[in-house]
């Protein structure tokens, strides 16, 4: 199959760079160190008390998984925000546009190159996560789901970065805009829910009441669905499900109120993944349009 020239060039240049070896080494080194210290401490406790705290292993798994997710979400904008604007600053974008490469080829080549770097980081850290298999509690299916969460989050955040890079001329502005959009998706939707929840708890106004719940306990009503676009919520819910805390009374409920939406909770992860994939598609389409619009 013919490779996208941009993907091929980007991967070749990054493979040549010392940075590609250094970043996974440092990142996985930190993860492995934390995991091994935790394991050592837990086993030390076993020797002293003859009691195995299996929850410690789950906590370790959660810690490593969360750290990795944070890395995915924070690193992807940095990897992608300069992708198109950098070409523009080097003045190579126009040269590519005079070739047979279409704007879509350029965008997808850039995205694929960024994702491949991220996949390398994610997959290379899975052996640390797989330490959990020593004591059980996490299945291969769970890890597959986790990988899916990472990939969807990377795709969504990467698409945001590339879209901003195509829209804004300067890499600095594109980077700030990417983190801004990400902030709105991650923090903005959470804060909106918290605000609505807060207003509900304190009486709120008539419109907010009509927007959602009719039960006695406070919740954020239909504002909850805003969280479908938030990759952090999807990941969070996946992790809670793995830890067996997905149903009412868990951390999710404490944060977002007493939603009686268990059926929605059951399909939340699948639904949010589909929505986030659609959003990634929209951001990529906007990026392609932004490149085509430069002609006008």
């Amino acid at each position, binding site marked *: 199959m013919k490779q996208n020239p941009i993907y*091929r060039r980007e991967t070749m240049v990054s493979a040549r760079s010392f940075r590609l070896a250094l970043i996974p080494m440092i990142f996985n080194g930190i993860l492995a160190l934390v995991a091994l210290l935790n394991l050592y401490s837990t086993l030390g406790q076993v020797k002293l008390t003859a009691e195995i705290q299996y929850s410690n292993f789950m906590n370790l798994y959660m810690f490593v998984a969360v750290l990795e997710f944070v890395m995915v979400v924070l690193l992807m904008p940095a990897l992608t925000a300069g992708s198109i604007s950098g070409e523009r600053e080097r003045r190579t974008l126009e040269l590519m546009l005079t070739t047979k490469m279409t704007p879509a080829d350029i965008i997808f080549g850039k995205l694929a190159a960024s994702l491949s770097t991220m996949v390398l980081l994610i997959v290379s850290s899975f052996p640390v996560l797989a330490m959990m298999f020593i004591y059980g509690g996490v299945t291969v299916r769970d890890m597959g789901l986790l990988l899916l969460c990472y990939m969807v989050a990377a795709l969504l955040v990467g698409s945001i970065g590339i879209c901003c890079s195509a829209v804004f001329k300067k890499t600095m502005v594109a980077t700030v805009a990417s983190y801004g959009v990400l902030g709105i998706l991650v923090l903005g939707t959470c804060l909106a829910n918290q605000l609505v929840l807060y207003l509900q708890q304190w009486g709120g106004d008539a419109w907010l009441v009509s927007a959602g719940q009719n039960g006695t306990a406070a919740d954020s009503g239909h504002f909850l669905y805003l969280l479908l676009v938030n990759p952090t919520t999807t990941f969070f819910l996946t992790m809670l499900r793995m830890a067996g805390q997905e149903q009412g009374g868990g951390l999710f409920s404490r944060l977002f109120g007493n939603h009686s939406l268990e059926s929605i909770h059951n399909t939340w992860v699948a639904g949010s993944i589909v929505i986030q994939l659609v959003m990634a598609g929209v951001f990529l389409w906007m990026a392609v349009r932004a490149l085509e619009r430069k002609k006008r």
Partner: protein
Amino acid sequence: MLKIRNLKKAYGNLHALEGLDMDVTDGALFGFVGPNGAGKTTTIRIMTGLLAPDSGSVEFDGQDVVARPGYLKERIGYVPDYFGVYDNLKVWEYMDFFASCYGLEGLTARKRSLTLLDQVGLGNKADSYVDGLSRGMKQRLCLARALVHDPPVLIMDEPTAGLDPRTRLEFRDTLLELNEQGKTIIISSHALPDLAEICTEVGIIDRGKMILGGSLEEIIGKVQTSKPLTISVFQNMDQAIRILKEHPLVHTMTIKEQEIMIGFTGDTRQECGLLAQLVASGVLVRGFEREAGSLEAVFMQLTRQDEERVVLSYEAESDL
């Protein structure tokens, strides 16, 4: 081969192109000249598909390239007024990348790249990083890059800007070589003496319109008639003045001692006729010459402000 008709482009209130017409024949080395802001780069960007016109048509071999950008991309190579290079690639990798952007892969791409690098004198730099090349070498690399898919038309926007005289001469020789190989070359430049030496056709653009186009000889010939004809008379000045006053092609006359400068709108044959008439009537003529035309002089004359412009009988301004 290339036909542009009534091309218009505006950026907000600024009208960059106002009905530009332009023709470039197959195998021509076309010099595209005009003052800054005349619309050269806008025209080139439209020709290369980087910019969409507001109206008008651009046709390569009868194909409308605005409607069929794919056809255009196969047919043109573009050398802009900047290098556009990836510093972290080796020279052959840079060529290989752009070859793959045109769908050329593997051995074919490699062979083509190395041949072109040899042609532009960078054969021994194939394994060097682009970062380490001089400005002149980078420009030659850009030229090789533009030729990687073997386009019949090469469009260049100020390619020699910022290059030293030796590199400019080498670049000029390479262009001539390419032109001899059958490439049609459209080159925009402010280095008018260089263009005058190599171009077979010239188009002069000003304020978004093509004000004069054709072969260099034609253009210089058309504009030359507006230059004063200086006649140095050794004897019989009064007779000379009387003949010149009565001549229908003489519009202005300035007398300074033994020299008469006349505005004469006739061509070379009519100039010879006038000289013969003067000599036959007993005027002793010591000198008879018109200032030689050059592309630079033509350019300066045509791109003056309106109030200073000499109105010529060329087609583009026939409505004046």
